[in-house]
């Protein structure tokens, strides 16, 4: 290995580390926004542990908040995709329940770029 080779290897390592830092720095979320149909049902802090009952289009669903994470813990929909999605903790993550017309979206300090509506 010559000097230039070592330079390339070092540059490569730096590049990889910078890429990891830039692209994998998941911003933690601070709030969860619950939407019902086309209206915002409410926005809740993720700091408080609580269960929120929401009456959706087909029945009551439960949204749980614990340790800075949020999830659907109970839903009247038949496929239960929203419940199986599990805990959400990063800014920009979302869980939807189409039959019940409910959705959760986690919000951080800065809103992430969203390709669906920007």
């Amino acid at each position, binding site marked *: *290995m*010559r*000097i*230039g*080779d070592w*330079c*390339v*290897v070092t540059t*490569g*390592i730096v*590049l*990889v580390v910078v*890429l*990891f830092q830039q*692209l*994998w720095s998941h911003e933690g979320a601070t709030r969860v926004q619950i939407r019902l149909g086309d209206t915002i049902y409410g926005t809740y802090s993720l700091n408080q542990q609580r269960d929120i009952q929401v009456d959706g289009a087909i029945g009551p669903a439960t949204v749980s908040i614990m340790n800075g994470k949020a999830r659907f813990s109970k839903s009247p929909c038949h496929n239960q995709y929203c419940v199986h999605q599990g805990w959400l903790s990063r800014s920009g993550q979302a869980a939807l329940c189409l039959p019940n017309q409910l959705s959760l979206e986690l919000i951080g300090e800065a809103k992430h*770029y969203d*390709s669906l509506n920007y």
Partner: protein
Amino acid sequence: MFIQTSIEDHRIAKLAALAIALHMLEAVIPSPLPGVKPGIANIVTLYVLYKYDFASAAWVSILRVFASSLLLGQFLSPTFILSLAGALLSLGVLWLGMHLPKKHFGPVSLSILAAFAHIAGQLMIVRLWLIPHASVAYLVPIFAMAALFFGLINGIIAHKLLYNETSIIDTSPRSQQH
């Protein structure tokens, strides 16, 4: 009709066959993430670039991409396009890298640069065509790490092949007289 072939053609065919064999070998190895592969066939490209010239290396690389995809049944599939994009971009970078001062930069440098170019080409195709979504960015660090790691190893192997007295790849005209 008879096509005249030169010794250079035979040499390119032989080296391309070797690259294809390595590519086949690699296709059998399972990968945790599609696309993260050692790219051992690139050792041959690098070897040819140093031993002969850029044109031969380009021939070997492109022949390898086409022939391997035909053998694996991937011709004109997204896999083939990805492979071709990676090969073309890394050839471009190799061409630029050739002009680096030989005193300081050896095959290891070129191997790493070519590996980065390879994944850059592939990720561009993925981002623009296959998965046009910003989340592809999450994969970039993993691919970059793999490129650095395998680029380094391939470069070291190429270096060993080139600068050892007894070459493992026999390309002398003598052995072509079967």
